[in-house]
């Protein structure tokens, strides 16, 4: 494992993208910052630009309007970047599969840009904050194999 990846594990910076979520996943993502969960103790913080991000936390069903913007955000993020598809919507469009304003699912949208993208799925509607922390721990394992 390169020193770069060893260091990356200690300070994963997260950029949060809402591509059409109902807010539930988003308030649970914000909840991670607050005293009960406090992910900053693992070196993770929410950052303001995808260019600073090591993790893209994507929530929501990826509507047609948000689709090209999500691809642009992925292009802007420095690689390697781990995409967390948070919630049932981001994982498989959930209850909105048949709705008319859906783009492609989050994983397909990102694979259209980069076929080898690292994507972790966090199922649940919404997933509990503990599940999101578990997903990041799994992302560490992926970084180990790089």
């Amino acid at each position, binding site marked *: 494992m390169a020193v770069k990846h060893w260091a990356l594990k200690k300070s994963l910076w997260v950029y949060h993208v*809402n591509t059409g979520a109902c*807010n539930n996943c988003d308030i649970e993502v914000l909840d991670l910052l607050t005293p009960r969960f406090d992910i900053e103790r693992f070196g993770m913080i929410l950052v*303001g630009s995808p260019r600073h991000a090591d993790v893209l936390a994507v929530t929501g069903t990826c509507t047609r*309007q*948000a689709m090209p*913007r999500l691809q642009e955000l992925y292009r802007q993020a420095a690689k390697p970047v781990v995409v967390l598809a948070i919630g049932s919507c981001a994982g498989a469009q959930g209850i909105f599969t048949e709705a008319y304003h859906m783009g492609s699912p989050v994983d397909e949208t990102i694979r259209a840009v980069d076929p080898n993208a690292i994507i972790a799925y966090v199922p649940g509607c919404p997933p509990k904050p503990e599940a999101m922390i578990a997903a990041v721990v799994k992302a560490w394992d992926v970084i180990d194999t790089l």
Partner: protein
Amino acid sequence: MSHKTMINIGPFHPLQEEAEFFQLYVDGERVVDVDVRISYNHRGIEKLDESKTFDQVPFVVERVCGICSASHPLAYVQAVEDIAHVQVPERALYLRTIVNELERIHSHLLWVGLAGHFLGYNTVFMWAWKYREPILDALEVATGSRVNYANCKIGGVRRDMTDEQLKEIDRLATESYGPVEMLTKAVIDDPVLHARLKNVGVLSKADARAYGATGPTGRGSGLPIDVRRDDPYAAYDRIDWQVHYEESGDVFAKAKVRLLETLEAVKIIQRAVRAIPGGEIDAKVQNIPPGEAVGHVEAPRGETFHYVRSDGSNYPVRHKVRAPSFNNIPTFKASCIGQEIADVAITLASVDPCYSCTERMCAAVDAESGRRMFDFAQLVKLSQEKTQRLRRQL
């Protein structure tokens, strides 16, 4: 010479949890116009509902907005119950009241936290969210989930609560009264917050009425409207409680109304838990006859309004949702114009806009070159710097 600049806020920025896009037109430091762009979050829920059966729709409308996920299904089931002339059992009405008031506490504390963050008071953000956690625990006790409750059902509620569960909810709500009271006093007594929030983003009574402002936005401007009192549903007419409102219409008034409502919600929960009768929780509904009806509920942000039409089949023929943010967002036209840019972040946040409900957005760009001038993070920085400046002066 006047030079108009456009400032984009959004669509993706790190501080608001949703995709929203405002365009502010500014002349120097003053905002002269504001525009909202929409559709990043549009999911076509009304159309989707037409392909679901009446019993499935509550689970879809719950996902209109994750923060109002008790209010939307309740408004929908009230409309359907009106079509089918269902008499909902007394116990179910009380259970609905308890879940709705827990939701109000969690939503208002969430807003107080975010407002504190926008002003550069991160301690308020951390504290408000810390005291919100026990309420989420209470909701988990009551319904099995922290934020999507799946509680409402046509004719009643889906889950009963045991006496132990009710006691636990009572305990968690009662314990949160002290911290919320402390937050309320901290906000009301803080001289910096007075300087930052008083006479900022004023929405006059006439404007509030003209734009049809609802919920805390209207109540902060001296309109004492509240669906819970004006057209009682659930068990609100069986419990003693009061509507809080303020006359001044500024951001401070809206914050005060929300905090006082949070305290009132704790009292409503305590009274509901003590007064809850026994019995059935569900009137068995066989079929939905043809007809149309509306249901409305006082969500944390204001009145949410659902219209349902049935043709006698299993599926609603038309379902229209009007979320409170739809009324409240246009009030920016009255409250933002004439403000300093540094005050815009908190004015926009003051109505607690919910874009997944309404699917709307807003941004700001140089009108001549088309270049983006500020993003929302910079606006929040300006806002936080102003607080620092005032704090030094005081």
